[in-house]
């Protein structure tokens, strides 16, 4: 059903894509590095990684279509069939799931009548279970076109999707002043700014929790060139206040070789052998 759901790669569309592709490849010493941006770019035109889009990437970078497909199918953000206007992703990794993410997903699935990676009949919403999106202090978290909707409940989540389906502008908790479409989002992810960086807040409540407490208590990092730590109680004036504490109490802890780390970095071996 989907193979003709997009405009053919010709005329103005092709010129635009070629211009954008040239800009994307110019960002890298090796043009192939632009493949991920180009796949986002294709999605910004077609709403998914279309067969013609794969061929376009291959032609642009001098790759085979098989090589491009192999990359496109590796990453979850590349869609193999037309995506809805809004990807609604509910985090159901452990922390969010336990805090209520499972219930939110179940409610949305029931409410929308679709399951994971399925799109509502009106083409508006593609529902997904998503993995941890680095906002655990705002659990349970929902993402709409990869903007943060923090501290959700089943009611708040169904309200968001209802308003999206009704065509209303919907603001994320931390993000632009309204969520954009899947295609618009994909264009930004291809590296083309939409000029909306200055919208929205710098941080939410949880991000600021430690800073607020430090301000309230007058805690700061030590001042440079410092003088021995002052014992006097600091004013709550924040960063102008002198540090109230010096070296923390845990300086004489037993030493043991670190045993590893996380998948963010190479581990599980002797770190001294890691470069």
């Amino acid at each position, binding site marked *: 059903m989907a193979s003709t759901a997009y405009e053919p790669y010709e005329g103005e569309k092709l010129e635009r894509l070629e211009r954008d592709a040239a800009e994307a490849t110019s960002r890298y010493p090796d043009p192939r590095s632009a493949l991920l941006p180009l796949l986002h770019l294709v999605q910004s035109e077609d709403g998914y990684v279309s067969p013609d889009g794969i061929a376009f990437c291959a032609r642009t970078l001098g790759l085979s279509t098989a090589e491009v497909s192999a990359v496109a199918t590796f990453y979850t953000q590349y869609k193999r069939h037309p995506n809805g206007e809004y990807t609604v992703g509910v985090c159901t990794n452990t922390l969010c799931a336990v805090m209520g993410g499972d219930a939110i997903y179940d409610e949305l699935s029931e409410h929308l009548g679709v399951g994971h990676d399925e799109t509502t009949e009106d083409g508006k919403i593609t529902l997904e279970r998503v*993995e941890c999106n680095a906002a655990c202090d705002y659990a349970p978290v929902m993402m709409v076109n990869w903007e943060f909707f923090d501290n959700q409940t089943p009611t708040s989540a169904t309200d968001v999707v209802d308003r999206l389906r009704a065509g209303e502008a919907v603001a994320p908790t931390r993000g632009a002043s309204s969520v954009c479409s899947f295609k618009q989002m994909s264009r930004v992810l291809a590296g083309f700014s939409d000029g909306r960086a200055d919208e929205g807040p710098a*941080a939410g409540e949880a*991000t600021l*929790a*430690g800073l607020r407490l430090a301000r309230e208590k007058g805690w700061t990092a030590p001042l440079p060139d410092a003088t021995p730590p002052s014992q006097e109680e600091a004013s709550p004036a924040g960063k102008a206040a002198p540090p109230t504490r010096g*070296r923390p109490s845990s300086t004489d802890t037993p030493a043991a070789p670190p045993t590893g780390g*996380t998948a963010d970095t190479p581990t599980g071996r002797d770190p001294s052998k890691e470069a």
Partner: protein
Amino acid sequence: MATTLTPVLSRTWDVNRSWGLDAYERDGGYDALRKALTLPAADLVTMVKDAGLRGRGGAGFPTGLKWSFLPAPDGGPRYLVVNADESEPGTCKDIPLMMANPQVLLEGVAITSYAIGCNHAFIYLRGEVLHVYRRLLRAVEEAYAKGYLGKDVLGSGFDLDVTVHAGAGAYICGEETALLDSLEGRRGQPRLKPPFPAVAGLYARPTVVNNVESVASVPSIVANGVDWFRSMGTEKSAGYGLFSLSGHVTRPGQYEAPLGITLRELLDMAGGVRNGNRLKFWTPGGSSTPLFTDEHLDVPLDYESVGAAGSMLGTRALQIFDETTCVVRAITRWAEFYAHESCGKCTPCREGTYWLKQVLGRIEAGHGTQEDLSVLLDVCDNILGRSFCALGDGATSTITSGIALFRDEFEAHITGGRCPFDPAASALFDHTPRRSRDRALTGTPGTVGA
């Protein structure tokens, strides 16, 4: 004397439009770069080494030492790649940092690039954080316009281009060599080491891959000095770091503190476990680190102490679970995550995580057998240390530690034929759980070995 918070990176997050260059400059932003550009590059490497900064992305490898592994310049390009693919479950520090103050990262990028002789740096950001990507793109524009990036940075003769690159959804790309393959436009699969990235990294050229928080910590060291940095933290785990509290805690969030602070101290600051409940289990550094319990409340959260207590400091992702939480459910969900994210390159991880998910799924659903527990431990034993990269190792951490700590709870699922916990009790809101249409993908009897 109790440990207190030490906001450095988070210090300006509540300032109006804190993400803008104006706000950053008002706070002394880019003074460290000005200072760095007057110093020989080698002195900066020594400075970061002496400061004792260790990688904030999980493994804790000394940052300055990593820089010093680059071979002598041969006239060809050398690269800095910032790992901004923050995806380790529970980890939520780099994303808010870049949302609130992308400029501190860029200043760190500029100093680090100068120190290692790099003229083109890359920031590899996970693709699932649209607004953070907007902020980074804008920050780079602003920094170019003011001469902090580009040709002849601040008149020093040093050239630096920065490209911010969005990924497309793959946890494995947080592994540094998989990240490099992904940045080269390939499937994100880890590379055999050696050669290490320092010798043959991006485009087979000498490359430093550093975590966001590591790089963002560099300007403070240059500005305030080695002694200042070492006045925080412990002898071997120097400095400060973001501790991310999440889950069943009264005030979850980011708490920037010296390394070596304890969870007891942090929980006290965060209002304790919610509703006065009991702490049941927690991760010190994300889902790839062995579980701790309330017996570990006083373990100093530094690399050595957490390691000596049997886990890893990891990313300081402190996920807190109270007594309402089913540990089998928690571990099963993490196992599903690793099975989903295994890149498929090596057999122990690809096949092992698949079977861990299946076996845990049936135990959680009440269809497991006593023998399944030894099957789980045996599979973990065949993954740990035998996988191509740390993803496989990480997949086993909560399973082996969870069975060691909560074996009776696993057995209760088996003997009782169902999960003894009410999932609604662990949620933040009242609801009646229902079984979703596609939840049946896992945990159904008869799917294993059928």
